[in-house]
């Protein structure tokens, strides 16, 4: 039973680590391979679109992984490799879009909405604080009215 559990655990863990990268694609130099892996994890597969090319089994993703490794071997910096792919497929291939003129709303919106929410919460709480903690005491007339109602009780 424990063995089975361990086996299942091992399988689950290996699944999360498994990538689409084939052994023959891997670069001999571990430092370059690490860079290639990091880069391909941030490039979008244009076939499946919500997977990185590192994750995707699509033939085009494989071609692009090989291409990224070729550029790295040829001495490109990470930025040059990114620029190479963007020149062909546009900024859409960057899974994390750069902060620029046309993307600043995308990046700013979460902070703006959080800020608005905080402002609304602050205004609400301040309103609560301003209200008197206890209601004003009853006037003599009101006291009389209450007493009369109580006396009416059967």
């Amino acid at each position, binding site marked *: 039973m424990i063995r089975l559990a361990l086996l299942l655990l091992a399988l689950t863990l290996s699944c999360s680590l498994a990538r689409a990268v084939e052994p023959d694609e891997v670069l001999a130099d571990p430092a370059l391979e690490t860079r290639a892996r990091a880069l391909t994890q941030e490039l979008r597969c244009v*076939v499946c679109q919500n997977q990185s090319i590192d994750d995707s089994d699509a033939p*085009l993703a494989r071609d692009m992984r090989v291409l990224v490794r070729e550029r790295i071997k040829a001495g490109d910096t990470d930025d040059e490799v990114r620029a190479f792919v963007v020149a062909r497929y546009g900024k859409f291939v960057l899974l994390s879009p750069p902060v620029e003129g046309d993307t600043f709303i995308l990046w700013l919106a979460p902070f703006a909405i959080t800020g608005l929410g905080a402002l609304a919460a602050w205004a609400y709480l301040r309103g609560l604080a301003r209200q008197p903690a206890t209601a004003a005491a009853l006037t003599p007339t009101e006291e009389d009215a209450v007493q009369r109602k109580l006396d009416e009780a059967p």
Partner: protein
Amino acid sequence: MSRWLALVPVLILATLALYFAIGLRTDTRTIKSILIDKPLPAFDLPAFPDDGKRITPETLKGRVTLLNIFASWCITCRVEHPVLLKLAMEKRAEIIGLAWKDKPDELKQWLEELGNPYATIADDRIGRTAIDLGVTGAPETYVIDKKGRIRYKHVGAIDDYTWTNILEPLVKQLEAET
């Protein structure tokens, strides 16, 4: 003040409705080409069948052409094929094929079986030119103007509708350019 506050949910709903109205009608699957209005990227590919000729961007200059990315392994290309054949037979368009990562014997068989609508076929066996063109899948068709610039890209099969409504008017407009 509190009366105006009641409008806030309505405003939020209206904003959401606007987002959905735009978002749900927009095709987000198709990645727009960033090469529109740019010259074709450099390439130098053998013709298929290989007769020693090389296909380069120069080959496509001087008239309006359709550059069609296809392959014998591509199912949708089979659907598109009769439309291309008709266009070629009626001489409505000059279609240059780019065989994307195809095997020569399978490509040959495909053309023999279905017919050949292509004026010329460039053989991109390793698929590098397709990546330079920003191809995201097959079939894709680029409309190339007389100066060899990419003017439009259609993703997916060309059918009668896309030809009549999008491609034909564009081809005519580009043919009128000097």
